[in-house]
């Protein structure tokens, strides 16, 4: 599927100046993604892409749409500038109908481009709270971080954790979490006793660990993503930080779970019941296991949902022979509001954010264990 679409892309790219109008209507739908495919965050790119590809296979198998879909993967390296270049290409040359973004900084950077071109952008990975309402065409199929911390903090405080230290990456996501903790902790009767920002490329965490120890926290919140998370966990644990570690859904990576030091790491994820859920969720989980030989993660599910959402909206538009554009998709979203997706019915609010139930989980022996 993917190889086919990439080869076909060359054809369209060259033919585009000569074949406009009618052909554009008859041709395939173009879906594009701006994920990190190289660099320290490439692991996410693979996870996100797997979700999208599975949804594409299901849409094809179900013959949900009359026109075929062409999927184009662009590399953002999780960097805003690369993201902007990739998004510009998707919007301007490929005339994408629907795009996928990830990472807070990249999402904020590409949003004005999609907004200007009225192209829908789906985020299923980044959780910066300010991603809400970025553009009428920017929708989140993931609960943003403020929803996650509001689920996590009361649980931990209930476990007797009162003093929190924050180790956060120095970027919009980290800043947002710092702000969020500063506001939310006092409300639940706890306090933020220290916050330590780290650059995105930092590798040495011994010194940070020493400073974390000094503020004598009950729990340490880690706000980072990608390869760095594992390094922070290892760095803290190896340097005498024995307290409870906690975080948000970015910890839901296999490479984190397999780290012995991550034992007991408590964080939040969206609630998805793969085994007992509805048929759609079970099918997703089974086919994913078959294709990849492992359990799907929430990210796989989110981008599966993001892609499936396009199928559902376009299917709706095809029924009434309406052209599939950013505006028609947006109107349909706001008209229907609720969609059958993996993990249950997804409901969207006016800003384009999907609401989802959140659960508190913990890494235990490399397995995700549900706590609350």
């Amino acid at each position, binding site marked *: 599927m*993917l*190889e086919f679409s*990439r080869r076909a892309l*060359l054809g369209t790219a060259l033919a585009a100046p000569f074949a406009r109008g009618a052909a554009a209507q008859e041709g395939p739908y173009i879906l594009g993604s701006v994920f990190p495919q*190289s660099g320290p965050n490439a692991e996410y790119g693979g996870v996100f*892409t797997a979700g999208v590809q599975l949804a594409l296979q299901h849409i094809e198998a179900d013959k949900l749409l009359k026109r075929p879909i062409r999927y184009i993967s662009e590399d953002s*390296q999780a960097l805003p500038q690369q993201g902007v270049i990739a998004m510009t290409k998707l919007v301007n*040359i490929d005339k994408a109908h629907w795009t996928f973004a990830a990472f807070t900084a990249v999402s904020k950077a590409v949003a004005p481009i999609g907004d200007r071109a009225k192209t829908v952008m789906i985020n299923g990975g980044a959780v910066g709270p300010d991603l809400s309402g970025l553009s009428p065409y920017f929708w989140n199929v993931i609960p943003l971080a403020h929803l996650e911390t509001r689920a996590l903090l009361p649980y931990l405080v209930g476990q007797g954790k009162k003093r929190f230290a924050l180790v956060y990456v*120095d970027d*919009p996501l980290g800043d947002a979490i710092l702000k969020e903790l500063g506001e939310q902790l006092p409300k639940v009767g706890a306090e933020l006793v220290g916050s330590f920002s780290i650059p995105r490329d930092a590798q040495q965490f011994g010194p940070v660990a020493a400073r974390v120890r000094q503020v004598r926290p009950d729990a340490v919140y880690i706000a980072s993503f990608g390869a760095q998370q594992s390094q922070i966990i290892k760095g803290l644990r190896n340097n005498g930080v024995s307290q409870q570690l906690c975080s948000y859904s970015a910890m839901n990576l296999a490479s984190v779970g397999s780290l012995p030091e991550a034992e007991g790491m408590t964080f939040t994820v969206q609630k998805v019941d793969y085994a007992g859920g509805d048929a759609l969720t079970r099918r997703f989980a089974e086919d994913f296991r078959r294709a990849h030989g492992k359990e799907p993660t929430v990210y796989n599910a989110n981008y599966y949902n993001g892609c499936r959402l396009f199928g559902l909206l376009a299917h709706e538009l095809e029924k009434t022979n309406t052209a599939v554009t950013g505006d028609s998709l947006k109107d349909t979203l706001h008209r229907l509001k609720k969609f059958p997706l993996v993990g249950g019915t997804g409901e969207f609010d006016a800003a384009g954010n999907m609401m989802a139930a959140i659960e508190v989980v913990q890494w235990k022996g490399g397995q995700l264990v549900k706590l609350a």
Partner: protein
Amino acid sequence: MIAYFSNLATLVAIFGILAVTLNFMVGFAGIFSVAHAVFFGLGAYAGAQIALTVTPNPFLACAVAAGIAGVLSLCLALPALRVRGEYFVAASLGLQMVALTLFSEVKSLTGGIGGLTNIPRPQVFDVEVGVLPLALLALGVLLWAIHAMANGSFGRTLKAIRDAESAAEALGKPVAVAKALAVAFACAGAGVAGALFALHMSFVNVESFTLDQSVLVMAMVIVGGTGTLFGPLVGAVLLLSLPSALSFLTFIPPTEVGSVQQIIYGLAMTLLMVFRPAGLLGDQNKGKSHA
């Protein structure tokens, strides 16, 4: 398609400005700076702030960007006056790293890693103008100025300093002033490129001004050929279209596209240096006889 090529052309023009101004420093004055992206960044932030807070007039943005980058180029001129060769490269590396930290941390001006978003489109007297013609204009003016200087007394002075600093000084040439001016000119040019970049992307953040970017610009100069007028432009075209060309290769798995691009780009740098060190347009005999 047209939009795509105009986007690529704008980037080529902007990086062309960076490459020709860096070449002015490297090729004429013998100042091998790997901190050009710092001044690109200063210009970008200055231009973006002007557009965001004062007026979207691109000429004002460029002028302010050039001014700020030109004045702060003193940070580069100072080590250039003290040391040469590897030492200066190291100094400029140090400057690059320190500036990068400042760009990330002075969030009130730069927005940190989150950057400055939603920079308005350039307007001249309430008419929206494209960045491409502006960038081409700036590139043309700079090329003309460099051409004039290269064949005039200033270029001669710089080349004299490059070849034999003490002899140039013994002929009454104030070396410090000449070097500082050359650095200021080149960095001001980089500042203009930065302002245009900010206006073109509508977004700037610190990732565009890293050491890798400085090395990319340096590679453009070296690949094209130092000390030639158009060599750096050829280098800019080649290195910028390489990733775009690669993205049309179908047999590369999507998750490896980025790596393959980087590998080809790194390999090209190395192989060129080994087999064609004077660059594509450079005089291959240059430097042979005195090595």
